[in-house]
């Protein structure tokens, strides 16, 4: 047996076991590789190895025209494609000084909220699968198909919405479609209430999630956590409430926060947000303004972009998503597009969270952060390995800097 005190030091004890998880792994549908170093069952260090999904999107955006980029940035991430497109399109609108009409703004919010519902349901289903509750996974996925149907009615495709365009949206909805979406949302509501009850009461879930992967307020802000992981730790950040972009200034909603800071709280924040989103969707459908055509003619969009820059934020499902777009006024292509996705902050900076929990908790903690590798990896390096050789950073990082 080894000396137990060894684990207290940052340096990896010789007896640790290295357990690689991924990149091809049945539980993770995305190519990420976690190198977990365990001392017995206890995790002493985690390296997040990525790079399998880097597609060089920022450079690709510089090489394509402003309008072609709308469809390229939609494909940064399939799950949050509407918010990506919305954020980029709003940056272009800031540069061009174009404002869409109110109906277009409401429809944009509707498409983004539908996306939030399906994304949160997906990650909750995956969480159910990971804790070993396969039936719940199948149930949630079955109900999620309803949302996908609503998305299909609204945008014309189940996943890739391609719904945003400069100055409005790309297709309008009529009364028949409105009623159909409303019906779906009303059907969904009791199901979500049921799942909330399951997550609140089921012993399997409570035992696996409560007190696992705790982060406190201070760590959440110093490590730049955004979205549900931050809100579950009591940090009230929500760009929908602070930036009030699109129609969020007119649609009533609450920012959900919890104070527990563990994996369970993160999942519950997501469920509460699903409920909020359903309410918002119903509000939008019954209060849809009638101020003209929300669909601009794509043949008559401005061709010339003045020089300028814009920095837009949007509350994606996983947190704050930011775009920085710069136009030099000379060419048809943007000079610089910088994308910072929420998973980038949440996953890259998360390595400190796993330490001290058992090996079986690693997938739970990772899932509770809602990893979106394709988002994160358009431009990412994470390398904690080098640091440990120099014996500095891990503890230092986790303690929140020098103090």
């Amino acid at each position, binding site marked *: 047996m080894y000396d137990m005190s060894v684990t207290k030091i940052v340096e990896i004890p010789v007896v640790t076991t290295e357990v690689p998880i991924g990149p091809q792994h049945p539980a993770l549908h995305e190519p990420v590789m976690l190198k977990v170093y365990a001392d017995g069952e206890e995790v002493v260090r985690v390296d997040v190895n*990525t*790079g399998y999904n*880097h597609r*060089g999107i*920022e*450079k690709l955006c510089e090489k394509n025209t402003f309008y072609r980029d709308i469809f390229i940035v939609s494909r940064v991430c399939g799950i949050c494609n509407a918010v990506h497109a919305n954020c980029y399109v709003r940056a272009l609108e*800031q*540069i061009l000084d174009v404002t869409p009409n109110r109906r277009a703004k409401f429809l944009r919010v509707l498409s983004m909220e539908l996306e939030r519902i399906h994304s949160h349901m997906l990650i909750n289903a995956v969480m159910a699968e990971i804790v070993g509750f396969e039936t719940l996974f199948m149930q949630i996925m079955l109900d999620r198909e309803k949302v996908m149907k609503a998305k299909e009615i609204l945008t014309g495709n189940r996943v890739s919405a391609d719904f945003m365009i400069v100055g409005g949206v790309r297709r309008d909805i009529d009364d028949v479609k409105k009623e159909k979406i409303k019906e779906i949302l009303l059907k969904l509501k009791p199901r979500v209430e049921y799942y909330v009850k399951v997550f609140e009461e089921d012993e399997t879930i409570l035992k696996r999630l409560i007190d696992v992967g705790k982060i406190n*307020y*201070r760590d959440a*802000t*110093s*490590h*730049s*956590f*955004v979205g549900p992981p931050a809100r579950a730790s009591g*940090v*009230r*950040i*929500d*760009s929908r*409430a*602070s*930036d009030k972009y699109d129609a969020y200034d007119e649609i009533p909603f609450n920012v959900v926060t919890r104070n527990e800071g563990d994996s369970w709280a993160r999942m519950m924040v997501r469920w509460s947000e699903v409920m909020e989103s359903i309410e918002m969707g119903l509000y939008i459908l019954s209060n849809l303004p009638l101020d003209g055509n929300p669909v601009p003619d794509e043949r008559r969009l401005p061709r010339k972009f003045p020089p*300028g*820059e*814009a*920095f*837009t*934020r949007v509350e994606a499902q996983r947190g*704050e998503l*930011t775009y*920085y777009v*710069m136009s030099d006024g000379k060419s048809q292509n943007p*000079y*610089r597009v*910088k994308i*910072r996705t929420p998973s*980038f*902050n949440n996953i*890259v*900076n998360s390595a400190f969270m796993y330490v001290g929990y058992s090996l079986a908790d690693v997938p739970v903690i990772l899932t509770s952060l809602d990893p979106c590798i394709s988002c994160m*990896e358009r*431009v*990412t*390096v*994470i*390398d*904690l390995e*080098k*640091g440990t050789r*120099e014996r*500095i*950073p891990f503890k*230092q*990082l986790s303690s*929140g*800097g*020098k*103090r």
Partner: protein
Amino acid sequence: MDATEKLRLVEGFALEKGVLKPNRKLFIVKPEDVRKIFESLVEKTGYEGFYLSTITGTDLKDENKVSLDYYIVLLPEEETIVIRTYLPRENPVVESIIDIVPGALAGECETYDLLGVLFRGNPFLKRGFFTPTELAEKNVYPLRKDSGV
């Protein structure tokens, strides 16, 4: 400490002020002041008072400069401010803030690998982890305008 005080604190370092669309306050500072700003922010407001949203580097080839933007969100008001600094294009070096703000890890690593801005004091910087190996071996930074990729 309310938002106006925090803003005044950052303003003390500013050479120039501006506005980035939509309504983000922009402060242009000297490269050596970036670290001081974060030090004083942490000292005055604590980690609870702000978070670093992102770091953006832009290669300004015509002006022979690299601009580096730090986007900070002040809490609890959630106001985004921008701290911008200009570095020489040949040898862009700036002090790392990773030991004060751990959340800078992601942004600094990314900016180094793609644009070649060196953050002095960051032990995690590494080439070729994320860019394809052959680019890293040729010492090409993909986001440079003359990288030719």
